[in-house]
Each structure stands twice: as C-alpha cells, then as structure tokens.
C-alpha cells in the first residue's frame, strides 16, 4: 500500500485519558504519529486534536472510523495536503556572539522572514512560523552558527471546506 501524509482533525470532549485512547488507535496498528497538537476549538468546551501521520488511504479511513467510535470523540476528519492550510512554529536558540561577529546571521533572519523574540547577553531566541520545510531550511542555514537549542511545534491546520462542525453533527443527529 502506498503511504501518503494525512492530517487528521479530531473534535472531542476535553476529558483526561482520551489522549491515550486516541493515540492507541494509531499505535495498535503500529503507525507512528509524526506530530500531535491539542487545543481548544471554535466551540466552547470542544477540544481539538491535529495529528499528522504517514499511512495508506485505506488505513486512514479505518482509523478515522475507529477514532469516531471512541465515546468521547464527536467527529474526526482526514485531509490531504491540498485540502488544508497548515502551520508550524519553530524556536532557535543561538549565542548572541554569533550575531555580533557575523553579518550573516542577520541576513539569514531577514531572508527567512524570521524574527528575534529576545536577546540576552549570552543567547538570543529566533522564531520562524511556516511549513516544516521552511523551518527546517532555516535550521540548516543557522547550523554553522551553533544552534544551542531547537524546538518545533506540531502542525496546526484549518480545513478549506466551509462546512462547520455543528453542521456535520446535525447531519448525524448530534447537537452541541
């Protein structure tokens, strides 16, 4: 089966233990989760998971049904890359010295539309928001100037279709 990247959005209750149940749907099929982000949604009291995985279409179809089977999950969706707008944020900690000693770092920050969040005597923190390829590109460019620490968030994504969650739920006789 050909593997592709899928982004899943899961709307759920905000209850302890549900994260376990959600990740288990993937791990029992030995599917690695590339990234996972949780947050509030546009509806008060409804929680939202964004999960990125690489798997086959038939697997992701089954997974979405098994996610929806969880009692506390209201609805789950899966999308291919072209059906969503997505972002990630990355933070890079580098020594302040490297900025002082080389004009290059400043040029890299400008060229990548990154920004400096803080400058301390010893280190500074750069932020870059974008697709993974973009935050990774900045990482590669900063590498020669010694990255002291690097972190990238999970993907967050908004689906392009205009239909709202409440409309999906109304279709299946559930109401918020």
């Amino acid at each position, binding site marked *: 089966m050909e593997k592709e990247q899928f982004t899943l959005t899961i709307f*759920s*209750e*905000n*209850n*302890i*233990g549900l994260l*376990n*149940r959600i990740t*288990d749907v993937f791990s*029992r099929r030995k599917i690695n989760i590339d990234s996972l982000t949780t947050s509030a949604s546009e509806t008060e*009291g409804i929680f939202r998971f964004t999960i990125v995985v690489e798997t086959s279409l038939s697997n992701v*179809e*089954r997974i979405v*049904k*098994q996610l*929806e*089977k969880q*009692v*506390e*999950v*209201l609805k789950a969706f899966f999308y291919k890359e072209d059906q969503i707008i997505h972002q990630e944020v990355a933070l890079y900690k580098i020594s302040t010295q490297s900025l002082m000693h080389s004009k290059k770092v400043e040029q890299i920050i400008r060229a990548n539309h990154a920004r400096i969040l803080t400058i301390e005597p010893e280190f500074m923190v750069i932020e870059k928001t974008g697709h993974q390829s973009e935050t990774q590109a900045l990482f590669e460019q900063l590498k020669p100037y010694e990255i002291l620490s690097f972190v990238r968030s999970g993907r967050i994504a908004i689906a392009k279709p205009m239909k709202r969650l409440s409309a999906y739920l109304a279709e*299946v*006789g*559930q*109401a*918020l």
Partner: protein
Amino acid sequence: MNTQIQDLETAQANTSSKIRKKVTGAEALILSLLEEGVDTIFGYPGGAIMPVYDALYHYDQQLHHILTRHEQGATHAAQGYARLAKKAGVCFATSGPGATNLITGIADAQIDSTPMVCITGQVASHLLGSDAFQETDIIGISAPVTKWNFQITKAEEIPGTIAKAFYIAQNGRPGPVLIDITKDAQFETIDFEYQKCQKIRSYRPVPPLNHQAILQAAQLINQAQKPMVLMGQGVSLARAEKELLTFAEKTGIPIASTLLGLSSFPTSHPLYVGFLGMHGNYGPNVKTNEADLLIAVGMRFDDRVTGDLKRYAQKAKVIHIEIDPAEIDKNVKADVAVIADAKEALQGLLPLVKAQERPDWLQEFAACDQTEHDQVVSKTLAPNTPKVKMAEVIDALSRLTQGQAVIVTDVGQHQMIASRYYRFAQPNSNITSGGLGTMGFALPAALGAKLARPDREVIAIIGDGGFQMTAQELGTLMQYQIPVKMIILNNSFLGMVRQWQELFFDKRYSFTEMANPDFVALARSFKIEAQQVQAREELSSGLENLLNHKGSFLLEVVVEKEDNVFPMVPTGESVSNIRLS
C-alpha cells in the same frame, strides 16, 4: 468543565428521583446500581474497595453478591450473566492485582460486544501516582479494552458516572465499561440523587435508519440469484431472531451463522445451512465463494470466518447490516452499508423484499451437506475408536436435551465440536468466547448464565486444559449451590494446538500433553457430584446422570487423545479450500 455541560443536559432530559441526604460515596454507588436495576454482582473484596463492600453489607437483600474465587472468574461470570439476562453484568474488584485480574474478561467482553460494568477500588486520591500499596493505573491499562472508562475522585461524581456507564455499556454496540473509584471518594458523603442517562452528546449509539440504504439493499436482494445470509451475534443482541426467520422464509435465502450467531436461527430449519468459518460446515464456506450476494447481519467478517480476504466472496455483492460504523469496510468492502440495529434493518427490509423460493440454490447446499456427512460427520460419529470421540458426546447430549440447553463452551477443539454438533433449537443458547478465544471462560461464564436464567439448563463443555485455568470457580458453585452441569472432554492434550502441531508442525507436540488431576476427586472435594466415563457404553448413562442430578454435576469423559476437528480452513487459505480431512 464538559462533564458539567453534559450533566446539565442529562438533568434537563430526565425526571429526577428522590434526594437522600448524607450518604457515603460507597452507598451512593450501591444506590446507583439499584437504580439501574442491578440484582447480581460478581466480585472480590480488597483494601481499596472495602467501603463499598461495607455499604453492600446492608443491601444484601436487594443485591446478590457472588464471591468468585478470582477476579477473572468474576468477569466471565458477569459475561455469562449479561448474555442471558440481556443487560450489563456487574463486577467489583479492588485496586492493583484485583483490577488487573479483570483485564482478560474485559478484553473478551470488548471483542465479543458484551455489556459489562466493572467497578474497581483505587487508592486515595492524594496517593495517585505515588506507587502506593496496590496502586495500578487501571484507567491506562484498561483503556484499549474498554468501550469507556473513568476515574472518580469525588463522591459527587458517582451517580452521574454510573448512569453514564450503564448507558454506554448497554446502548449501541454493547461493551465493557470500567469505573475506578478512589477510596476517599467512597468515604466522602453527598446528598444522593439519581437520574438515568438518556444521551451523551459525543456518542450516538444507533443512527436513524437510512431508508435509501434499505431500498438499495432490497433491490440487491430481489435481483440476487444466489444470496446468502451471514448471521452474527448482532441478531441476538438486537433480539431480531423472529425478524430474521420471517425474512428468511419470505425471501427463501439460506442462513449461515458465525460462531457467536449460533442458536439465533433454529438448526433444524430447512433454510439453515450451517456454521461459517475455520471449523464450520462445508456448504456455507464453499458457497460463500459462489454466492452473488452476501447479506451480513450483525457480524464483523472476522478472519476466522473469511480466511484469505483476497479470495473471499469475489463473485458477491455485499450488504453489511451492522450497528458499529467502524466495522463497515474494515475487512470486507460493503456495496450497501446499513448502519443499524439488526431488528430495525430487517423490519425495514421485510416489506420491500419479494417472496421467492430458491430450490436450486438450496439444493447446492444440500449436496455439500451430503459430502460433509459422508466424508466427515459419519466418520466422526462412528463408534470405531477405542475411546469415545468428542463429537459422539455432543451428539448424544444434543439428543438427550433436544437442543434445549444453554451450551457454554470454553476454547479449543471441544468448542468447535460443540458448535458443530449441538443442534440448537432455542435462541440465546450459545455462550462462548469467540473473538478473544479465552481458555478458562466456560466454567465461570456458565455460573453467571445459570444465575441469570435459573429456569434453563446450563451445560458447560470444557477441555481438560481450559478447565484447569479457572477450576477454582468450583468453589463458587459450591458456596452458592449453583446447579451448573459440566462436561470435561478430557484428551490429556491441549487438543487444538496439538492438531495444528500434527498438521502444520510435523507432529512436534511441543508442550501440549498434560498430566491431569483426578477431576472426579477434585469436584468431590468441592462437594460437587462427579463421574468419569471411560467406555463408550457408559456415555449415555453418564449424560443422564448429569442431566438428572439436581445440583451441579461434573462429568468427565475420557476421549480419544489424537482426534482432529474437520472440516478446516487452514490459516491464510481461501474458504473454498476447506479441508475435509
């Protein structure tokens, strides 16, 4: 935060019961169980659930507590109870090992869709996460094998959570729920008020019937030349036996059954064509690959039913009637999916399907039956071996009970033989561990079943291996005088594994031979009447003794050591390549 929203919603949808002032969490639990109509609990006390047991002490007239000899026994007893009572079985266990001992039964209930509510005690909430004595993360451990679980740390959460637990366990596709209650929540006092749960916003047990899908299904059924119904446990869970019978008789469609579907259609009916799958009947297996339409009713296309999926039912369109949307297209792609309760779906279909007779198609099954009879059944039942064969025992039992008993089987050769040779004449008569294949299931499940339906004859058929996995439950039979009949088919082997070793591992009988205890003496030590049958001539009288005895009775039948179960679809093979020898 959200539980509050849900509680509010529930409160609006319900009428409230009377308020009882200042009851402990433990008593609130007992009162909640009574509100849910619970009359029987299977359990085992221990430190973290002692307040609950103390509360139970005052309610022993309303709540019948059965002290099993192991928590696993409690879960299987609750399963047996649930299958016959048609409502959730209830278990109590303490924290730590008490809770972990429940897991096998919970997993069994999950895969076989059995409603069950398990209550576990937990260490006090201030000790959670500290590796306290008998602390285990039972919520984490049980999550993958429960339909829902929840940890209660405050007494005020008890009534609402118990209401939710029963609602979830018993609605939609049934399943097990585990509720973990910290010891401090059991001691804390609240004003008790109970409202039954009517809905949960994130859970829809049964969607409204899709009439478009029903129309499409009816059209496929009316056009089909060689249709076949695959009946699963969903028929019995929906209590749709009558609807299925009417449907079959109107459309003339042959009915085949999965392991858990057995007894939902009378085996003597001319449209009944037999048992599907690995050790099922010849006809329904090979005809699956000749059928032009499969109508799957409340079944999930388990690999034991389908064999190799790439060579499964390639000529057939598939109508899948199933309450759980996650089963649709999971193993076999459905041409028409009817996500519904089996009863509702069949009722919807009935007026739309044409009355037909299909003598030619049924004749094909009859021819297969003849083949199976000549090549398998007649040989298996022939009294031509030094020791009795398992099938002879089941055949005789079927005759003596006229197919009216509840048969509870364990797992292995005897299970397949019982499923093949017992001629079920009554619905709700087959209790077995199907999906999980749990050895040790039968004895405790039978005691639970007997408590649910004391009016029915409950007979556990068990292998010598499986019997020894939960033999301690003889103590439970003894203490509560539960008249369960037990037949041990003793071949001093783990027979099914031995059969595979013979067929697929060049007869290397690696650790399958068993030195067994004196089962008769063992039973008698529990004050249970028992008898051993060695010779074929003693079989009938032995079975009669078993059936005529008032209390529980154990009949050990020493059977052929190296008997095999045929037909057989070897793992990974197509159902068409079913072996007759």
